[in-house]
């Protein structure tokens, strides 16, 4: 349970998961924000009108997945690092999961890394496809992970293979 462990449950995730059809069509943001806190940069950063206007600053974000094109600007603007972009159109067997990344060293494209779930458990391997670490990301960099297609809604973090587990 989220409030005891920090890990959202299936019911919470079901509410924010884009439809399988939408996911298959291409990149789309998954907003894993489950607590009403006074915060709205996801809305103010969205240039496509996908994030619905907040009536109250404590509202939970509401995203229109049809209007979201998966640009990923919000990934680096969310103070809670709670937004991910998944792209199941990447290939027959693999999906891309874009995660926010604020650690050093930065991984490099081509690196094989451990793919971690929301509990920090290793669930498989991932390949680093791309790393965005420009001024626009303002030190909340983005790592694009190629993961087995079935893990697109499971993988939410990575760890270097030789790392000691931190």
């Amino acid at each position, binding site marked *: 349970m*989220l*409030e*005891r*462990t*920090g*890990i*959202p449950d299936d019911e919470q995730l079901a509410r924010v998961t884009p439809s399988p059809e939408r996911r298959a069509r291409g990149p789309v943001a998954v907003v*894993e*924000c*489950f*607590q*009403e*806190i*006074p*915060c*709205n*940069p996801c809305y*103010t*950063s969205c240039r496509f009108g996908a994030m619905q206007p907040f009536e*109250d*600053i*404590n509202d939970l974000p509401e995203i229109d997945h049809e209007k979201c094109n998966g640009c990923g600007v919000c990934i680096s*603007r*969310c*103070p*809670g*690092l*709670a937004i991910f972009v998944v792209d199941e159109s990447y290939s027959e067997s693999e999906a891309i999961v874009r995660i926010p990344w*604020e*650690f*050093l060293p930065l991984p490099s494209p081509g690196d094989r890394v451990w793919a*971690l*779930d*929301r*509990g*920090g*458990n290793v669930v498989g391997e991932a390949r680093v496809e791309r790393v965005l670490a420009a001024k626009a990301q*303002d*030190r*909340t960099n983005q790592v694009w992970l190629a993961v087995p297609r079935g893990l697109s809604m499971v993988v*939410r*973090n990575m*760890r270097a293979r030789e790392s*000691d*587990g*931190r």
Partner: protein
Amino acid sequence: MLKTEVAVVGGGPAGLMAALAAAEQGARVMLFEAMDHLGGQLVKQTHRFFGSEKEHAGTRGIDIAAMLSQRVTANPNIETFLEASALGFYRDDQILSIEFGEGILTCQAGAVVFATGASEKFLSFENNDLPGIYGAGAVQTLMNVHGILPGEKAVMVGAGNIGLIVSYQLMQAGVRVQAIVEGAERIGGYLVHASKVRRAGVPILTRHSILRAHGTEALEAVTVVELDSSWQPIPGTERTIEADILCLAVGLSPLVEMLWQAGCRMTYVPELGGHVPERNQWMETSVPGLYVAGDASSVEEASSAMVEGRLAGLSAAARFGYTHGVGERRQEALADLASLRSGPVGEKIRSGLARLAKGGKA
């Protein structure tokens, strides 16, 4: 003796905003800060802020500190004194005494904004004086201000926002965080912070507490234990975790000594962090001309501290006839505060403020 219209004690988020708001209205301001830099706790906050754009949401605390400090330094109405610790306040002549350089400064001020912040609470347990046991603020100062790694393996006590954020910062510095121990049944901090450290592999042990620390010269390990619903340790659930850092993030107490000295009416309100001054909606205490803002008024988020600073600064300046647009600006600040506190996470502060308004009764 120095003389000014508005004196601001403390150069953190509340004090900086108070100084700016008063100076931008036209008041002459003197700002006293104990450290050698402005920004208070903002300079340790490497995460992006919550709140709305007005409180710089989406911008990191360190960047907000730089931005506000620059505005303060550039404002000709503000004279800033660094490494200037306010020591006392003498109500008869409205005089602050300040330790500065080798001597003592005195400053007579028409109005004073106390934005003195808060201090960290501590826990009592066996061996809690071993080297390696820190308050979370000290760990942040070591890492984020001085660039010093405090150790290799850490255990954090407290899953409020400070405990969660400092755990994340420890990981960013290359420290392995072994566990976050929280006495309450639920995580107190923002759940997005909790999820962030959890997916990096840090277990969050709710309903657990620290039993004792182990080590001869310095900390080597800690024993934690599960608690029952009445907060009593459950025998047989002890486990020992290797750690050379134990970091305590178990709450803050408002720093209000000078407000006591000034004769402000104080009330004990646990939801607000302890003894806090009674004040009206403009942040004026029971002593006319003395204002309070930020954690000294109630332990809350930096975003609210900045708005309280704005309110106090506007109100202090208005005493000297700098009233241009003040009605509108204060209403705007009040609305911003209400909005920041309106959601479920604002419940504690709302009930604390309601209790304060009733003189401490629930």
